[in-house]
């Protein structure tokens, strides 16, 4: 009961936040709504005792991705009204597609219930069960191949991004830190010994 109350209240906030992302007039507000939505989804995962996923969601999306998002959004001067024009025009189509997807998802759930697939309610995990450990052991055994491919894709993404963006501009002044560190006093300062003189 307590569990259900928590679930529905957080889910309600999640829905409100998701709507806020779409309807916020200010792009920065939209991003902040998205952050809130991520937090709420993390809480829902926590309620399902998937603490690893929940915390990683906050760590990766809220802590890194959305910060960069915010970074970009703040730098850009987004004309919200201009985008809004297209928004109302495509809204009916969007609503139709959203409705279709709801129907489809409902159908899959219904189908899985019908065909003798066991669908259980929420079952609390036994004492001492670690979601992180369970996930790690599956990731490094059963799905190790996919996991390694994902690593290769990240390497590829780095290579691709660097090859597309890095350029050596001629005439750019760069400091060579190693040579700065390696500098010694005798290279820069010349100490001249001279006899002291007396003013006449």
């Amino acid at each position, binding site marked *: 009961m307590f569990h259900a109350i928590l679930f529905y209240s957080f889910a309600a906030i999640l829905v409100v936040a998701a709507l806020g992302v779409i309807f916020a007039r200010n792009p920065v507000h939209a991003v902040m709504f998205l952050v809130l939505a991520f937090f709420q989804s993390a809480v829902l995962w926590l309620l399902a005792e998937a603490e690893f996923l929940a915390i990683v969601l906050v760590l990766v999306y809220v802590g890194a991705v959305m910060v960069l998002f915010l970074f970009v959004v703040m730098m850009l001067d987004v004309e919200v009204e201009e985008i809004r024009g297209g928004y109302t025009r495509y809204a009916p189509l969007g609503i139709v597609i959203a409705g279709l997807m709801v129907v*489809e998802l409902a159908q899959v759930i219904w189908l*899985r219930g019908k065909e003798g697939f066991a669908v259980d309610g929420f079952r609390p995990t036994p004492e001492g069960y670690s979601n992180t450990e369970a996930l790690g052991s599956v990731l490094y055994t059963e799905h190790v*191949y996919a996991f390694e491919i994902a690593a290769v894709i990240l390497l590829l*993404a780095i290579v*691709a991004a660097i090859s597309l963006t890095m350029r050596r501009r001629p005439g750019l002044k760069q400091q060579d830190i190693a040579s700065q560190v390696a500098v010694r006093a005798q290279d820069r300062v010349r100490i001249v010994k001279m006899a002291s003189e007396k003013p006449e």
Partner: protein
Amino acid sequence: MNLSQISPAAPEITLTLMICVVLLADLFVPQEKRVITFWLSIASLAVTAWVIVVTASSATTLAFDGSYVSDPLSRLMKLCATGIVGVGFLYARDYLQQNDLLKGEYYLLGLFGLLGMMIMMSANSLLTMYLGLETLSLSLYALVAFERESAKAAESAMKYFVLGAIASGALLYGISWVYGVTGTLHFHEIAEVIRQNPGLNDVPLWFGIAFMIVGIAFKFGAVPFHMWLPDVYQGARSPVTLYIATAPKIAALALLFRILVDGLGELHGVWQGMIMVVAVLSLLIGNIVAIAQSNIKRMLGYSAIAHVGFILLAVFTGSETGYAAALFYTLTYIVMAAGAFGMVILLSRQGFEAEAIRDFKGLNARNPWFALMMLFFMFGMAGVPPWVGFIAKLNVINAVLEAGFPGLAVLMVLASVVGAYYYLRVIWYMYFDAPEDRSVFQSQADTRFVLSLNGIAVLALGILPGWLLKLCIDVIGHS
């Protein structure tokens, strides 16, 4: 985990290690000696090919808890893809050097793309398949945009990326449906679940199949998901176009085989109709629009769409003969495509891209040997006997007739006749027009040698197709 569990994946592991070697070595190679990277890449391909051959057996082995499969089909495809990527690298070398584009990243992205293709060819789960596809696509997007200063390349890369992302999304959405309905990601388990629960053959699963076919058709470049193909072929630099036009076609065929045949073979009746519509449209639109092109890369793009129509019709039959014909068609088509784009590269030089069909005018007067080679490629693609394209088309038509669709066979013959027009136009320009440009080709001897070999192969395979055909039938039978 011990070594024997991962040893079936030896080719992929070798290639990954070699990519890392090339990546690190390229860092220390000075720009003037960038050719070292090229030779290292060729060496990587050679080592990979050697590993594929050494580990080959006629058995089918599953690895990584069933997400990886090593069977004769995957090994044949991998070997061909490795070879054709090597040929592409060789053709590209002098061109890249002349145009100041010789950078390690071209080879790295090419090798990464090959890795993605190999992952796809050996994928036995929807997840692995998707990851392999993403590896391939990501390398291709970056390769198309490889020349940063060119606005045209950037535009086509952007188009390719946006449309490719949508197609990946469609595929993933379809995958999620199939997973939701069957409850498993592995192809053999999906087939098993569907066999045991005939009730699953219902709207939700069809829905998933439709979305997956959208994704597959996009990767193939089949109508109506072909919009990116001519633009990308034209916008990318010729060596990149050569890369895109060849090996990824085998990977796309693997995608089709693994998902539709291995996983959803039981539902042949469901996807047959969708494949047919896509294939027929590709045949018609590819061949007809190609006639209007004046840019040879664009023309070859539309011709690729038409060829994809043939491949899809061969798969459409759902018979082993059909699958073998599709495999044979794809393997021989990429040989011809590699040669044709090799010729485009050969004719180009510093600051000049031989893109217009006009640029082939009077090739016979300039260099009769390579004019003859181009003639081989064009006749091969048009399907004129005794070149190999004829045998390939004949096989497909045969399979379609066997499956009981004489109407489609007639359509294919008609489409071939229409298609012959634009191939013959190139030949007409080469032999019966005066040359406008008399510059000398700047390729090195090894490139010319391989290109000649490529041309002769198109003819030789046409005269002696038996062994390859038998190999294709064997491979399909064993998988």
